[in-house]
């Protein structure tokens, strides 16, 4: 019986905690409506499409391919990213480059974003620093699957 009374008191305390949250947050909401600036806000959530959180510098976002000074892709089609990719979403076809210093350029370079798991291994594997994941783009939903396959022009931006 004493135990039961203890539980009862604790449940009442719980109701007071939620009531406190309600009242404190309502006070801040009302202050905001009245136009009074407060340090604390009534809600901790971010109103996403209008209000965005800054993306961290190290965040792995949409891929991009880097260019040389003359505008050609830095990629030399070494296939290391294709090899390391755990989702097998990178597809590269090589072709010859007239410059003997470069030798190979990609004729095709596609990333299937619907398969990509954003592990960043391709970025780490690349010996030429040709692929990076630092565009800070995180919204690339599409209506059709074929649109999720990004080709060379799209990746070069």
């Amino acid at each position, binding site marked *: 019986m004493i135990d039961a009374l203890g539980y009862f008191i604790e449940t009442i305390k719980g109701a007071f905690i*939620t009531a406190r949250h*309600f009242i404190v947050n309502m006070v801040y909401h009302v202050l905001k409506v009245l136009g009074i600036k407060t340090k604390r806000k009534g*809600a901790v959530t971010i109103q996403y499409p209008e209000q965005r959180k800054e993306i961290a510098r190290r965040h792995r976002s949409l891929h991009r391919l880097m260019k040389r000074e003359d505008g050609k892709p830095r990629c030399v089609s070494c296939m290391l990213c294709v090899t390391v990719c755990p989702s097998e979403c990178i597809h590269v076809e090589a072709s010859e480059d007239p410059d003997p210093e470069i030798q190979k350029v990609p004729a095709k370079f596609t990333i299937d974003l619907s398969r990509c798991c954003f592990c960043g291994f391709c970025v780490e594997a690349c010996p030429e620093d040709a692929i990076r994941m630092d565009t800070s783009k995180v919204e690339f939903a599409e209506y059709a699957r074929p649109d999720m396959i990004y080709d060379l022009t799209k990746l070069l931006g």
Partner: protein
Amino acid sequence: MDLLIAFIKIVFALVWFLVLTLYLTWLERKESAVIQDRIGANRANIFGLRIIGLFQPFADAIKMIFKEDFVPAFANKFLHTLAPFLSFFFVAITVSAIPFGDKLDIGGRSINLQVLDLNAGLLFILAMLSLGIYGIILSGWASRNRFTLLGGVRGAAQLISYEVALGLSLIGLIMVYPSLRLQEIVGFQGENLFNWLPKWGVLLQPLGFIVFFFAALAETKRVPFDLPEGESEIIGFFTEYGGLKWGLFMMTDFMEIIIISCLATTLFFGGWQVPWMGSDGFHFPWGGTWLLPHGIVVLFQLFAFNVKVIFFCWLQILIRWTYPRYRYDQLMDLGWKVLIPLSLINIVGTGIMIGILK
């Protein structure tokens, strides 16, 4: 003319009830959000006009209307369709016995601000609330699905555990107020204790109020006692329903909240009584008076009734967003081993107090 007045009263009461039900869904969303440090549904808009999500109930309604009206092939079609209407009807009809205010004198007529002045209004409301269980059992059974049947049976078992305590908790109250007519019960609460304290039911029957409120919470079938439906995990009686029929069950829940709030207000918190206000204005216990015209007094009473009802709705939603669900045996224990003995103690104590004070 009397017929017209009755018709207008019915329309007003139903519109009040349904609008409050609609906006209770909004209140539930917003209140849960504020409790959890969120903002809540605020995206529904008309031409970009949002006004803190006030259009959300209409968006919900439109969505539910345009959903497929699905009846499983193995279900009993007639009963499956009948069940939500039954549970909706029995709750919707209770509003007719709720007193919204005192008599309104217009053009030589005295209009009672209550749709039906039954002389057993309290029993009528309790009976209709209990009949609501038929909708639940029927929906569980007519769906011909084992899980919904179990949900319906759980609902019935829960109802038996709580209906007894609910009835017994009000007996002490009926002993104190020598009437079952709700308008008279409210009128009785207009007097003052010791010349300054409003003589509300909760002061005369504190234990009765606690038992009543617990049992009434179980009656609404919402979260601490939501075994019949179990909206979060366990499968309940309306598993086989969708669209507007499911919406009717959901509305029934919200309407039950309102009716329970109305009952708690009427029986224990003075109904439409404003503290220290008589039929001609305020008579303060410290001697001052503030006389008001009749129309203003009626408005004050309606306002007081609505404020009290909305407070109790708020409280029930707060409780729903605070507590986890009771386990089944704990619920039965609470009903049979705690609430019923407490209500019996309340009856005996009330009897003794009445005997001493006489």
